């Protein structure tokens, strides 16, 4: 069999085509969930709520439970493999709910995973904003939240945008392990061709090329955004 036969014979290209659809849908859903979670976590990290400020112990006075919770989340998520998180989500969390579509479960798992990285990116953005911006806003009477909402976050998100796109690219590649819960994504599609034809080279390189094409495309978008941002400074 030549390469064309391997990839296109018996409609095998449909494995890749339908797999691509699954990969893209999963990436988009997970990215959106990750952005929402990441933003919330980044804001929790900034929380100055100190419920025990009246306590005698200096440690308890400084205790910020919301920030602490956010840090536990990012530590656990960033310290364990995405595949382990995916399998826990599928076999443990949703273990007894077999009616839930796998796409939802996987989107949630990868979204929660990505959220931790997004939070760190946005945190970096927030911390890069000059203290004078906060001082000016507070001196005008804006509350901490209003200062965050109208002054710090808009600038921080703009700063973070290239890194956030880069996180989306990482996520696209991360989703290639989703075959472990039996989803037919691009990687699994290539694998199916590999099984059917008993040839590894063509199917695997086809998958690699498609991934590369997608990441190249998104990297271009990122570079363009970076240039735009620099121009508007």
């Amino acid at each position: 069999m030549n390469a064309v036969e391997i990839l296109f014979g018996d409609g095998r290209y449909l494995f890749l085509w339908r797999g691509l659809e699954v990969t893209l849908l999963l990436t988009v859903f997970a990215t959106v969930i990750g952005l929402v979670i990441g933003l919330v976590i980044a804001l929790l990290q900034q929380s100055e709520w100190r419920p025990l400020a009246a306590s005698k112990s200096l440690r308890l006075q400084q205790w910020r439970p919301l920030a602490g919770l956010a840090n536990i989340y990012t530590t656990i998520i960033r310290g364990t493999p995405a595949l382990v998180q995916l399998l826990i989500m599928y076999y443990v969390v949703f273990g007894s709910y077999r009616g839930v579509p796998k796409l939802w479960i996987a989107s949630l798992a990868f979204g929660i995973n990505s959220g931790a990285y997004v939070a760190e990116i946005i945190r970096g953005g927030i911390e890069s904003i000059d203290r004078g911006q906060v001082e000016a806003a507070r001196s005008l009477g804006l509350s901490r939240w209003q200062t965050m909402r109208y002054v710090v976050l808009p600038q921080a998100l703009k700063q973070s945008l290239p890194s956030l796109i880069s996180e989306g690219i990482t996520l696209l590649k991360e989703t290639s392990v989703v075959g472990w819960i039996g989803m037919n994504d691009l990687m699994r599609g290539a694998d199916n061709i590999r099984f059917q034809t008993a040839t590894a080279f063509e199917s695997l390189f086809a998958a690699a090329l498609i991934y590369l094409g997608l990441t190249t495309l998104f990297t271009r978008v990122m570079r363009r955004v970076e240039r735009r941002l620099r121009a508007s400074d």
Partner: protein
Amino acid sequence: MIDIKQLHKKYGKNHVLRGIDLSVDRGEVVVVLGSSGGGKSTLLRCINMIEVPTSGRIWVDGIEMTDPATDLNKARTELGMVFQQFNLFPHMTVLDNIMLAPVKVRKLTRTKAKKIALAALDQVGLRDKANDYPSHLSGGQKQRVAIARALAMQPQVLLFDEPTSALDPEMVDEVLAVIKRLAETGITMMVVTHEMSFARDVASRILFLDGGLIIEDGAPEKVINHSSHPKVQSFFAALS
């Protein structure tokens, strides 16, 4: 208008303010002088609680800023502050910079806030820059916009923290002229500056800070020419 009792501020071991007692009346224009590191900016920043005092009490217009029960966001609306580095919001137009606090804090309608913002821009002579972004302005223009932004909240007191120190020399005068005009409207002001001619012409009172204490306090003529304090004498001698 402003009353300060035994204000102390420490940063770790660094004791920046060592017991400031001060009372500023309505309509006074107080210029704060002193060598750098003397605590001038810290004093100003403690008044609106951007810097939290280590100990001591501060009242502004009868409201105790240092009382934990005080709504600081509300209290700060009566204290406009102008910073050395301008601190304009770079992602907003000049007009939006000025309208932000009137709309979000004073809860004015956008129409009303815009009217106030444009009037404030008139006061600093920059109405034609309303729709520009800060990055398109010169340093002097940025500082005048920052002054307009503080004015738009119609505060009782204006605090100027070295408003001309970050400016190119040729832009200092346009900013000082604006501050001088404001001083003539009778608003209460405290100005930290190194501009001696401004202190001489505009101040109704000069404070001299050294080592975290007010070591001289009085009319400009008295502080500049007739101080009995050797540190104050040598400070002005070095300038002339």
